[in-house]
């Protein structure tokens, strides 16, 4: 299943990251996963939150530009080779990973990998065929 990820544009300057984060904190919106892409001048804050529609509205009404992107979260064993095993499924295919991030969720047992593919539907088919468990939104929200 595809998940909605929010991306927010931030200038790479002191004080610019806290604004969107504080806004969501005050609204009681729980951040499930987060990564920050940085360049010399700007950054892109990528978030998976519990209530993405409300988070998007809040951020936009504060004047931020927000983009919704569909990403795919999969669960792998948290041990050497967990990520490599998933990536091997895509070797030799035309499917490209635009970016990804990972976090452990039961320490020493399982980890979650979040992928932004150029072809999410093709990727889901490959993952399913390879026996990799794709997480539902409710599962990701649950931990």
């Amino acid at each position, binding site marked *: 299943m595809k998940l909605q990820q929010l991306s927010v*544009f931030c200038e790479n300057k002191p004080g610019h990251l806290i604004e969107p984060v504080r806004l969501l904190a005050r609204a009681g919106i729980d951040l499930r996963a987060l990564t920050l892409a940085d*360049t010399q001048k700007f950054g892109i804050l990528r978030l998976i939150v519990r209530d993405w529609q409300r988070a998007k509205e809040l951020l936009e009404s504060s004047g931020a530009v927000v*983009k919704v*992107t569909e990403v795919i979260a999969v669960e792998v064993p948290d041990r050497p080779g967990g990520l490599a095993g998933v990536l091997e499924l895509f070797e030799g295919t035309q499917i490209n990973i635009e970016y990804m991030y990972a976090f452990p969720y039961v320490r020493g047992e399982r980890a979650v990998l979040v992928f*932004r593919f150029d072809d999410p539907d093709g990727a889901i088919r490959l993952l399913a065929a390879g026996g990799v468990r794709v997480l539902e939104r409710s599962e990701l929200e649950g931990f």
Partner: protein
Amino acid sequence: MPEDEKAATPHFHPASAADFLPRRLLERVQAERLRETVERAWTGVPLYRERMRAAGASPQDIRSLADLGRLPFTTKADLRDAYPFGLFACPMQEIVRLHASSGTTGKPVVVAYTREDLALWTSVMMRSLAMAGVHAGDIVQNAYGYGLFTGGLGAHYGAEGLGATVIPTSGGNTDRQILVMKDFGVTVICCTPSYFLHMIDRAAQLGIDLRELPLRIGVFGAEPWTEAMRLRIERLSGIRAFDIYGLSEIIGPGVGMECECRSGLHIFEDQFYPEIIDPSTGAPLPEGEEGELVITTLTKRAMPMIRYRTRDITALIPEACPCGRTLRRIRRISRRSDDMLIIRGVNVFPSQVEAALLEVEHTLPHYQIILTRAHGLDQMEVQVEVTPETFSDRVGVLEELGERIAEALERVTGLRMQVTLVEPNTIARSEGKARRVIDRRSAV
């Protein structure tokens, strides 16, 4: 409001009759008025008399419009040197109003009106607003600043003259402007185009869709704006946006105006005689060629202007307008000779930066040009706000956007500039004129 109810039906006000004079009659009127103006300037203003003498000309030499080229130019510097009252052609007892320009450097320029001048100003503003389709029964929100600036009172008397209902909101307090617009059933808005864009943004934040209001006409001026800004304004607000031209040295707003064809601005030639000259040599240019607009007032009494150099770059359009008005048109003014930035010896206009941004983004984002000097060299940075259309979750896409803008800028100007993407709403929105250029070169 449905589109067809908003559609403009032509309303002609009697004041607009002068827009349709046969050319030969118009030219006879112009020549006669020119002779009177030159006579008045010679008699009433020592500076004009001295200048004409120095140029070997006297009022007797000015018989027809063709003789105009014998008269010397008047410049903004002349008005500053004459501060405050040196160019008045009549005693203060006859002057009923003073305005002053918002001079960004040094002393302001003071302009004066007799009672007749105010009537003239009202009539050209009535003709301007009528040209955009404003008529009795309209509710006009006038968000031009009231005060020393001519915009507020000029639009005010013109709209009242037509019998419209005027709401003198003046500039600023955007939330109240939007409240008035919505609750008073405003049909016409008068303000600077950048301020109206700011109102559109703010209305959207407040959850108000201007397209659903009875608002149907915008009369925008006091700063150069582009066709792209017009499209954006019309798309987001559902109105028809018209460009009005004027300058306080000539009368204020109401020197020229777009008609329903919106392909150039008709100059009220029976009052303000236009010429186009080469800004570097002063030589008159043939119709159709681009140069600096020079205006001679034809009936103004308190402060006649002889061949005033406006510093606005435009061209006279040779073809007749399909609307039937015989008044000649100028092309929309996109730049002023003094907007020109000189960067490492290269001439750059903000309008070129806009053209480059438009080429890449298709709509014009908010931007600002910042000039600094480092290691003895001018540095130009263009800050561009990221929009929902251009933003991406992928770093590469944004970096490529910046690169494409830098390439387009280089193609247009020949200079490599630094392009910085900035967060939305971080570039200051002025409530008056847009501040597009920040020059920090002297401070370094």
